[in-house]
């Protein structure tokens, strides 16, 4: 089957940011996403999950320009919150879905 390029955006964030991030990526043009509860530890050492529930991983497949916008939006939270974001190249079928 023919595949086309897309970008996989992965955000791992403290639980507090879940709804805000989901709202944001939708507003920026993501047509869908996958949300998983995850555990782990980051550079902050402070484990928010003790209070706010497990951290979340949000994955969404989007076009490259949308991915850039999402990264910019997530970056606003870097200073005070436990959150990371990274991009991976992906090959998708039915590119118009993303």
């Amino acid at each position, binding site marked *: 089957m023919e595949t086309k390029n897309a970008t996989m955006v992965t955000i791992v964030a403290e639980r507090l940011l879940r709804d805000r991030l989901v709202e*944001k990526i939708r507003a920026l043009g993501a047509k869908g996403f996958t949300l998983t509860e995850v555990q782990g530890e980051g550079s902050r050492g402070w484990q928010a999950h003790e209070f706010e529930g497990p951290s979340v991983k949000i994955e969404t497949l989007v076009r490259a320009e949308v991915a850039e916008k999402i990264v910019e939006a997530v970056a606003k939270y870097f200073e005070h919150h436990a959150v990371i974001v990274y991009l991976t190249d992906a090959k998708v079928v039915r590119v118009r879905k993303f």
Partner: protein
Amino acid sequence: MSPAEILATNLLSPVVLAFGLGVAATLVRSDLEFPEPLYQSLSIYLLLAIGLKGGAALSVTPLTVFVGPAAVTVLLGLVTPLTAFAVLRAALRMDRINAGALAAHYGSVSAVTFLAAVSFGEATGVPIEGFMPALVALLEVPAIVVGLLLARGAHARPGEGEGSGSWAHALHEVITGKSILLLVGGVAMGWIAGKERMTPVEPFFVAGFQGALTLFLLEMGLVAARRLRDLKEAGLLLVAFGTLVPVVHGVLGVWAGTVAGLSEGGAAVLGTLVASASYIAAPAAVRIALPEAKPSLYLTASLGITFPFNLVLGIPVYFALASIFGG
């Protein structure tokens, strides 16, 4: 009872012992862990149960009896964040943001500390007004608002968006958060239904209550002991703050409660409420509105220092004070 006997009554209660077991479990690195859904279920049960009980009691309380204590409670909720903030700024030289965050916690209230005080009253045979849970609900919110205002000061920008804290979002979180929703909702339910119609649900909400509270305190012990790790970083000054300020607030609460016409037991419980520091509603709001404030400071202080202090020593002291003020 002699002071030693009173202290023993408190220390030997299942509630305090369960807390001790939780602390011990964490210290010996036991694999004991409360699953998140159990923690959530217990807190929903406890909050709704105290709301219902308070509401049912309120339905048979004349308004004139309730108005004085209610007014005093709101007033205390506005004053205690100011005293905490002043102490933190002047004596601890803490920055504005963190001082405001802590002030929100110390002005607000811990429902579990409240329950421990009621248990203690029951164990020592001191009667307590049934409507006290309504006062818990009244004390919870104002202090959080004052604390956030103190932290943001003139820089407050309502509706400020993403990244840094949003006021609207934080306020929404406090008012619609589960602790206020269940507490106020429970009081409303109990008040509307009235004492008699509560009878069918009593076996579940009343008979199981102390057991559920004991389980919950076990979890609190586990969680509080984890915060002890941060004590070293926090330093002696924070320990002093976390024990002395609650006593000052407790004295103020007991005195104000007595003046407002509460019974000895009621005044002691109000003192406990005012002395306690929030660790559910306040952290949630502060995390949203003041993301730059350090959770390791406010959680360590409220949960690692003040909660155990009140549970073990504070509560008997506030009861002793109430008997002195009342007598």
